[in-house]
């Protein structure tokens, strides 16, 4: 029940007589289900959705596919020898510009996992226990080869700033079922090694879509949401008194001037106040059983990727539509052998735990989990012990949410350079993600600068072979 039943009703009824109504009050945070239909822009999904929500595990920095999900024995044989010119000629190169391009062997072993026999890094044995849930796509390519534009491309389908991120598009289309939490939540973590590559807030911005669809960064330190907590000396009750008085005065003013923005403002203060308890409730892991904490292998508030995975499950349970986790420091220009083992250790248990936990709760079937970086890494060595950025072929995996489990799709060439079999680009990933959410990617549009923009720009095709 609304903590302000009278005010709310009064303001609402009056506005209704002025021809405004539910529309003005709906969608405060890209949520608030309106009567019937979807809470977002779409009145109904374009087709039956297979996934209700997305958990996107963004491995920032560009994880090497060649040490994780794409085993290339030929690189071992060719180690130290020049890459065939036919593969590299005229291709975008990042830090290896003007340097010799020599093959670099996989730095860790691979093994087969699960009934399906998925082959991936032997550094990921726990993920191996849920291998049969994974659909591994080994033929992804991106247009961008530097971190910042590549993140932009992966998130918005464009390398020009100012476009909405995929989470914003999703809540714009579908709204969210979370009543007192944002519909699009972002968490970040880093671990050992690496350079802590920057991540800009634009990666979760709403771009030209209305601001209410922007991602909210749930922080590990300080106020989890910006300005969530009342100022020093102001108890929650006193804060509530202040909010009540603000809303009472706003409602009274509305009676004089009939401004629909006022009822929205009143609702926003209610929402802000509710968030002051809903967010701490979300972050309070006291009620999580020890078995769950052990499954993820994290401690409350430790800021690890595993902790964020647990938070992702809790957000998903509370109806949040799009949850994006950034785990940083995959940028292994040097000492990739050590770097990858750090990262693998940080994600192995966490990813396994997330999938296991979702499955046990019956949520994996309608939660689409996506794991991937903004690009992959070169089959060529950099400095004799690392790999450079590589955008022509890399791996992404998906699980749950209507994706065929236990299959792989697409392949790179023998060197792991180009996506050659069933190539998939970033727009295709977006199209597929939207398809699983019940959205026809060609039809969720927004008019900006005279054009009906969409997440997939003018491209994108649904990767039908991976649909369950």
């Amino acid at each position, binding site marked *: 029940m609304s903590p302000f039943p009278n005010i709310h009703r009064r303001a609402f009824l009056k506005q209704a007589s002025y021809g405004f109504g539910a529309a003005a009050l709906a969608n405060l945070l890209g949520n608030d289900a309106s009567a019937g239909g979807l809470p977002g822009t779409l009145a109904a999904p374009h087709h039956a959705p297979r996934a209700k929500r997305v958990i996107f595990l963004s491995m920032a920095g560009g994880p090497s596919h060649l040490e994780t999900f794409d085993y290339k024995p030929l690189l071992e044989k060719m180690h130290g020898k020049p890459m065939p010119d036919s593969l590299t000629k005229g291709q975008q190169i990042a830090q290896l510009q003007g340097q010799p391009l020599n093959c670099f062997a996989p730095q860790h072993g691979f093994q087969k996992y699960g009934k399906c026999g998925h082959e991936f890094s032997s550094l990921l044995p726990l993920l191996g226990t849920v291998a049969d849930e994974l659909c591994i796509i080994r033929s992804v390519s991106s247009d961008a080869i530097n971190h910042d534009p590549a993140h932009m491309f992966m998130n918005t389908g464009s390398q020009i700033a100012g476009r909405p991120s995929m989470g914003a598009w999703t809540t714009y289309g579908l709204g969210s079922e979370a009543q007192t939490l944002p519909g699009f939540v972002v968490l*970040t973590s880093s671990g050992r090694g690496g350079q802590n590559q*920057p991540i*800009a807030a634009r990666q979760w911005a709403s771009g030209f879509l209305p*601001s209410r669809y922007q991602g909210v960064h749930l*922080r590990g330190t300080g106020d989890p949401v910006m300005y969530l907590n*009342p100022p020093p000396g102001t108890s929650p009750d006193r804060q509530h008194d202040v909010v009540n008085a603000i809303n009472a*005065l706003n409602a009274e*003013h509305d009676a004089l001037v009939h401004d629909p923005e006022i009822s929205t403002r009143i609702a926003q203060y209610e929402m*802000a106040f509710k968030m002051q308890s809903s967010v701490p409730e979300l972050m309070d892991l006291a009620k999580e059983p020890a078995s769950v904490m052990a499954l993820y292998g994290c401690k409350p508030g430790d800021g690890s990727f595993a902790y964020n995975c647990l938070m992702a499950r809790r957000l998903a349970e509370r109806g949040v539509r799009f949850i994006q986790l950034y785990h940083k420091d995959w940028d292994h220009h040097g000492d990739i052998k050590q770097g990858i083992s750090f990262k693998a250790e940080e994600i192995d248990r966490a990813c396994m735990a997330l999938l296991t936990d979702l499955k046990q709760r019956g949520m994996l079937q309608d939660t689409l989990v996506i794991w991937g970086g903004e690009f992959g890494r070169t089959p060529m060595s950099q400095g004799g012990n690392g790999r450079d*950025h590589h955008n022509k072929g890399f791996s992404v995996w998906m699980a749950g949410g209507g994706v065929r489990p236990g299959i792989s799709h697409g392949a790179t060439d023998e060197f792991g350079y180009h996506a050659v079999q069933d190539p998939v680009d970033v727009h295709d990933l977006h199209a597929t993600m939207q398809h699983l959410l019940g959205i026809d990617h060609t039809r969720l549009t927004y008019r900006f600068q005279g054009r009906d923009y969409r997440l997939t720009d003018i491209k994108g095709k649904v990767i039908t072979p991976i649909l369950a």
Partner: protein
Amino acid sequence: MQFTWSLMVFTLALAPLQAGTAQKISYNRHIRPLLSDQCFTCHGPDATKRKAKLRLDQREEALKPAKSGERAIVPGDPKQSALVQRIQTTDKSDQMPPSESHKSLTEEQKAMLVQWIAEGAEYQAHWAYLPVAKPPLDASAGHPIDALVGVRQKELGLHPAAQADRRTLARRLYADLHGLPAPPAAVEAFQQDQAPDAYEKLVDRLLGEPAYGERMAVWWLDLVRYADSAGYHSDKGRNVSPFRDYVISAFNKNKPFDQMTIEHLAGDLLPNASVEQRVGSCFNKLLLTTDEGGAQAKDYEARYMEDRVRAVGTVWVAQTWLCAQCHDHKFDPTLSKDFYAMGAFFADIDEPIIAAPDAGIPVLNEAMQQAAATVQAQLLTAQQTYDQNPPDILQRIDAWGKTQLDAGAKDAWVKGFEKPAAQRSEAEAKQLLDAYKAHAPELADLRKTLDELKAKQKALTETNPCIVTRSTANKKTVRVLPRGDFQNESGAVVTAALPSYLPKPTIEGREPNRLDLAQWVISRDNPLTARVLVNRLWKLFYGVGLSKTQEDFGLQGEMPANTELLDWLAAEMMDRKWDVKAMVRLMVTSRTYQLTSEVTPEMLARDPENRELTRQCRFRLDAEFVRDFELGTSGLLVRTIGGPSVKPYQPDGYWENLNFPTRTWDASTGDAQYRRGLYTWWQRMFLHPSLLAFDAPSREECTADRARSNIPQQALALLNDPSFVEAAKAMAARLLSEVPGDDSARITWLLRETLQRPPTAAERGTLLALLENHRAQFKTDAAAAAAIAKAGRPAPAGLDPAELAAWSSITRVVLNLHEFITRS
């Protein structure tokens, strides 16, 4: 409900048609938007996507018979027109637009197309590309804006709302012209001013004060994408704040807009360019740049060029040229070649591509310039003295050398003195001379003076640097990049050229440069610049542009309901030699501007979106002004103009995801903590969260139309951002120190200060109840009261902490009110 609403709009749009039976369908108003939206994707300017070789955007093409003999449009004969047949058929395989396009025409739209063809299918040039002609004006009808608004309202049978009261007008003018709260005394003086020109006097006073330039800068800086950081990757800081100050000063000095445009695009190319003109050219350098290792120069060279073309398109002419980066424009006549030829205007800009921002040139104010000249003169004199050798120099050197040898000095050069003077080579003699000058005690004072002067000079030149445009004769080669791909070098090399589809001067015998580009932008023959500019100014003072599509005056752009008004204003802008202040004055002195923003159900029904200007708009203040209102009302605001950007409080760790290098936000101290919002350090990757909450854009791209959202983050910021909490406390402290009387009297004072009106009985009741409640609580909770007293600057001594805390609750309420942050 939505259905009825859109019907209402439709009815209104058609009203003039129904009223005058003789009135024809207008191609520009009714038909082109339809065709552009529904048909041009396949039957428009883009040849590569054209279906059935049919082109509907040009009349002669649309009238041509196809191979089959069919004609899409037969003027005057809908029945013979294939277009009519294809939009009316129920046969799915024949129907247009085809179902797979997910586009469709309503029955009304189909009827309009039929009527238009029946009436002769006349085409018109796109409204925004037509020359700006000044519509005739009935001089007796009063203010030109009211006259032109009145013509349409009369046609539609609409009536304007009542005039707003003087309190509202004063608040509106302060918000619109200064972005600041109206001081209560000024409101009351205006309320009591019986002079017939009281209103105009207030307008003129406000236009003459420096806050006007600050207010206008907030608008303009969005457009030119001004920010304190580079944007990509490490998002390093850069020296651009003198450009912000240049913009403030340009509006305050009322620099003609054409001159400002020239300085933005080509200030560096002006003969004997002044520092001010060169600072203007910082515009070209405000784009996103990178210093990421591994970025390819060719890649970013192309990005920078594209960014600059998009910027000119957005800032001055509202053309979505970015679409032509990959292909000919789908709606507008912009060719891909045009895009790259525009890019070639910037090929002379001399800059490293992958690099951290350079330091720029020193920008000194008058006092600093004088100081620099003095230092320079002193330095010259001192240096001359130092360089001059007295006639007995050789003896002096040797005498000093001997003391060094005797003292057993170990420096390498000391050995040189062992050789007799006559035997020393020239190089050896020089070395000893230098050593003598650098070390001899008799020159110590002079050396000290020199060092000090050099330090002074360095400090002066480093105080206020600004990045500016540098031109080189060694221009970059620009070619058309097929599909925008920088690696594809198969495209034709292009030289700078103005867009093919707009009027332009002939420039012969040389390649045009940025100066020519600027001249073209502001030339009288350019149909776009003045229209775009007045439409944007209109939004500042009327809430919504005459055309809603601030960023697009191309074929998909909204034709204003009142084209005559837009054109009149555009022509007037040019007639007045781009005098922005005069145009602002014109806009805020109309009767239409002074209408109330309160609506009645009848008005809502007749003019739901206020496109006919039957009333004023109400809207929430821009992010920067929200801060200015909070700090300004509480008395915290420090009104220094310009200078380096400042850092108001920001939550710790907000920059944790920035790197190369990692940075912490060190909140400014002293007066710098309390500056206006526009001086906040603008970090593109992580804009200050309170600015962000209130829709301030990251300024990575040019923003022509800042959003106005209403989201919970705004409530959280106003409630809990330490800057606003401190403002509430400062307000409470002022109340307790300055206002005698009982609680009720103090509440009256508080509402006068914040809302410039007395409280209603209910408001007073609510606030008094809260006050009593919290007063009782804080009396017994000394720790909480002490915590509140600690926020920010210490409160004046002698205030009872419980009283201060209780009143802070009240001031927080009032400083959070919708009415307080709304311009009505």
